């Protein structure tokens, strides 16, 4: 198993954190992982992206030009990464603020309404966990159980009471995928 994924959106949407949680979840499953962020001005509100690779075997390059899956959360990222999905791969995008939807026919495209889902569960901060939940529904590369374990590893103990809320967000995310 090898999953090469890019997650891209605005700085502040939790793109890097989502990648980090995915990477930690992979670690919990004894898989090889790399997490390569865009760094610099992006952190302060521009566009941000992260490449995460989860694999059963040793990973060569942490930097890629084609991905198994792209999770994109704004128009700029969609424009940039739609063409970088491998044929037969997966593109998941949040519908909010998208004026020009993706057009490729050789990949599987999932349009999710994650921004609206945050309103439904009354928690705007759980946006990235909702997206992660949707992603894992399409590509169950790690189990929800291990995501929660990974979360525990990344969060300081004083925030552990937020884990059930994150679990709820992951489950909500899974419901956004219509096969």
């Amino acid at each position, binding site marked *: 198993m090898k999953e090469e994924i890019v997650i891209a959106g605005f700085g502040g949407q939790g793109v890097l954190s989502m990648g*980090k949680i995915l990477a930690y979840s992979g*670690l919990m499953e004894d898989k*090889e*992982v*790399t*997490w390569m962020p865009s760094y*610099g001005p992006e952190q302060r509100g521009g566009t941000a992206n992260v490449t995460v690779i989860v694999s059963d075997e040793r990973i*060569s390059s*942490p930097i*890629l030009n084609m991905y198994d899956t792209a999770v994109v959360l704004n128009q700029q990222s969609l424009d940039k990464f739609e063409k970088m999905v491998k044929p037969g791969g997966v593109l998941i995008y949040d519908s909010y603020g998208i004026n020009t939807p993706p057009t490729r026919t050789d990949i599987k495209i999932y349009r999710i309404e994650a921004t609206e889902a945050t309103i439904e569960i009354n928690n705007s901060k759980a946006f990235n966990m909702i997206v992660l939940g949707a992603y894992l529904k399409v590509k169950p590369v790690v189990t929800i159980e291990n995501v929660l374990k990974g979360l525990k590893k990344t969060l300081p103990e004083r925030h552990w009471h937020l884990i059930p809320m994150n679990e709820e967000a992951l489950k909500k995310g899974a419901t956004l995928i219509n096969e």
Partner: protein
Amino acid sequence: MNDKVTLMKGNEALAVAAIRYGADGYFGYPITPQSEVLEKLEEEMPWETTGMVVLQAESEVAAINMVYAGASCGKTVLTSTSSPGFSLMQEGMSYMAASEVPALVINVMRGGPGLGTIHPSQADYFQAVKGGGHGDYRLITLAPASVQEMVDFVALGWDLAFKYRAVSMILADGVIGQMMEKVVLPEQRPRHTEEWIRENCPWAVNGRKGMRPKNIITSLELDDDKMEENNHRFQATYREIEKNEQRCELINTDDCDYLIVAFGSMARISQKAMELAAEEGIKVGIARPITLWPFPVDAIRKAAEGVKGILSVELSAGQLIEDIKLATDCNYPVDIFYRLGGNVPAPDEILNALKEKLVNKLG
């Protein structure tokens, strides 16, 4: 899951590795893309556990001179910086080399020249391996290609520095500094005791206690004959290092038609290019210098035997390629592929360059 395995950024791994080695002091000044080294050290607060000093100096010039001072006392000290900061440190580097003190200096390179960009680069290669400061000196230069090697080379760097009374340098780049990977951390080692320093660093300035003649650490020697003698001694040490400490990783080089030579992040990305090439039936091997100085001449020569051509893949405009040509006595066609100014190539760019520059030309 193995409890000893954790996930860490390369920069954070450097910080933790320094504490675990039993470092006495870190002196540095923040600069992207390696600021996490100082941040992680401050988060870990080793002054409360091992007694290690962590100090943010007023500038890189101050930081390197604090390292010089600590090293002169036989202490296990380090600094870390990125390219513009490393330029500021060159005077101190030259002085430390002339004073024969052991220290560890880390450069997580970014795009230059000048303030340049904050994104990855390898353009400080010449500065590291040919000497960035004045005078005839060399730095033991280690090039990690993974977060695990960021950890391992901290220990290796200091071991070699103390063994040869030389300055070791870890030459990484923004990719290796910023990426997170699995890493196994070593056990905590105790810091060196004063007794250890007296025994192993008899040259150190740490108080005579009436027992021995004065030790003087200086780079100044106005007697030309003595200064020449000093230089001969430095060179003799460098020849020893060249003889004993060349390190190189060879991947699929036994049966390859084309050889890529690349270090650090470029070796990782080239490996993916090698995998893509194999899918097209092109046999590529990789030689990854781990020590940039001493350059692994013997391994590169061996890897090059029987290949049709060599490609230097670097984030600099023709630096590594010079050492490849010297190592192979220009016996093979050597071409180059690079990206500059903070841009990093994707694996397919490297593969396309390999085809265009070597495969299509040499068949």
